[in-house]
Each structure stands twice: as C-alpha cells, then as structure tokens.
C-alpha cells in the first residue's frame, strides 16, 4: 500500500472517511460510498425501529467498509460514554468517533466534556477519535490524553463553510504526533484538497456529498480532491512570491 493512512496501527489506502447521514436512500448511499473509495464510514447509534427497512450495517458489510460508530447527539461525557459502550457491544469495535456537542444551534464541541469523555473511554480501552474545535491547545490535550487521532472542524457541522481558520489547522498539524483528520465544514472538493494541502492525514465529510444534487458524482470529486491534495502536499508547493518570475528563458 503506497502512502497509507495509519490510525492506531491500522492502515487504510483511502484518506477519505465518509459519514452516512442525510442520504435520501440506502441505494444512493451505496453508490456514493463506492464512488468515494472510502474504507471507513461513520454510523450513529439509535433505538431499534422495528419498521425500518434495510440496514446501513448490512450495506457497509457487503462493501467491505469498516463502520465507525459515533456519539452524535450527546451533550455530556456521561451520555457519550454510554453510547460508545453500546456501540462497542453492537458493532464489536472499540473505535469511536467521539462527539460531545455544546448546543444545537452551533453543534460545536464542548471541550470540557470532550476531554473528560476521552480520558474515561481511553481508560476503558477505546480507540478514541475526537471531533474537536480547531484549537491547537485542545488538540494537544486530546493527544496527551491518548486519543488515536484528532479531528478538528473546518467550520460547523453541515455548514459547508470550508476551512475558516487554516492557520489553526496548520498549527495543529505541525505539533500533532497522531493523524489530524479534518472533520466537518467541507462544502466542496476544493475544501477537501485544501485540508490535505494543509497537512491533514485525512478528511471526514458527509453533508457535502449526501446533500449534493448528485451525491455519487460529488463522492467521486471528493475522492479525487483528497488524492490531489495529498499528492500536492508530498510534492511540495512552490513558495509564494511578491513579484513575477518568468517561466520561459529570456530573449537573446
């Protein structure tokens, strides 16, 4: 595997992690996930609905995509820990995308609850991937607590506003010893490419694909944008210059 994404000792060839929320149907979701090339995809944990038809888990299993349970909708460390434990039992995975949000209007992470939940889940043997603010200090604290990655937001969940503070993302990447995964806020393909050019190890997105006019086509765009951004990072961009620099030889 060339240039794999490695999280907690496990390798992935795709650097695009997908969410599944907001898809009009499982069939559209299936086609978009295949187009995205993703190998790791988030799911939420909710009460069993006896009337539900089809299962996102069956879909992921059929495509060989690993399910990453999240704790979406939790407002306290206690709630998030309970959901993570249910997810571990239901899905047989100790990996969790930890979300502890502060309020419904912004869906921003609550940093205090997030760090508390991370510490307790790590002590309980979980591999914790926290959805965090784009705060370099909090990212460092989460890494010190033992998180397997840090997942700063580009902008609020579902906003499509892209990366509002690229400088902070760069600061997080510079000092992180674990993968930095840009999570939330991606609006279109260029946002995903920028995340990778800033040095993120991967991008996690949902809304920009699931609510696109053509989710399958946007999933293809995201796959290629993540690859392009990663290649550009490895290739090394030219320095920015104040003035022109001729690319053709001078006239004799």
């Amino acid at each position: 595997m060339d240039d794999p994404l490695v999280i907690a000792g496990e390798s992935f060839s795709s650097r695009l992690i997908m969410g599944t929320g907001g898809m009009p149907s499982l069939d559209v979701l299936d086609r978009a996930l295949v187009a995205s090339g993703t190998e790791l995809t988030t799911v939420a944990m909710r009460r069993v609905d006896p009337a539900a038809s089809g299962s996102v888990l069956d879909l992921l299993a059929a495509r060989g995509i690993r399910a990453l349970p999240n704790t979406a909708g939790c407002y306290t460390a206690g709630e998030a820990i309970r959901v993570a434990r249910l997810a571990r039992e239901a899905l047989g995975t100790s990996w969790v995308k930890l979300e502890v949000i502060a309020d419904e209007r912004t869906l921003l992470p609550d940093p205090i609850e997030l760090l508390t939940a991370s510490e307790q889940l790590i002590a309980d043997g979980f591999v914790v991937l926290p959805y965090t603010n784009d705060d370099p200090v909090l990212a460092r604290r989460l890494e010190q607590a033992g998180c397997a990655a840090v997942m700063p937001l580009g902008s609020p969940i579902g906003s499509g506003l892209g990366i509002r503070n690229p400088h902070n993302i760069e600061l997080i990447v510079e000092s992180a010893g674990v993968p930095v995964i840009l999570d939330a806020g991606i609006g279109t393909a260029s946002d995903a490419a920028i995340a990778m050019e800033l040095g993120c190890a991967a991008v996690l997105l949902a809304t920009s694909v699931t609510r696109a006019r053509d989710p399958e086509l946007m999933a293809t765009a995201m796959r290629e944008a993540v690859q392009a951004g990663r290649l550009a990072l490895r290739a090394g961009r030219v320095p920015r210059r104040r003035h022109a620099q001729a690319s053709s030889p001078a006239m004799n």
Partner: protein
Amino acid sequence: MTITVNGEPHLAAGAMSLADAVALLTTKPAGVAAALNGEVVRRPDWPQTPLADGDEIEVVTAVQGG
C-alpha cells in the same frame, strides 16, 4: 409486571429475560446492543438476565449518521 422498552411501556404476563425484551423489537443476530437500567449487558448474557417490574431497557443499533 411492567417494563419500559425503548421508551414504550410493556405489560408482561410472566417472567421475562432481557433476550425476550429485545426480541419484541428485533430478531437480528448481530449489530444490536441492549442496556438494562443504563448498564450495557453483553449479548451472551441476555437470556440469563431476568427482568423486574419497572426495568428500563434500551435496544439500539447503527443507523445512518455522522
């Protein structure tokens, strides 16, 4: 006795195990977890977990999200 399963009251005529309560909602052999009064109970232990009047049971699975 009356138990609460996913927020809905359920009147049980006789003795019930956690496995019986889960079976009210789903027969899926995997992908489901259950908590009894807030504590997760491992699937192999469901049949040996008796329920008592007033117990609250949560039965969850993975859905689209995130």
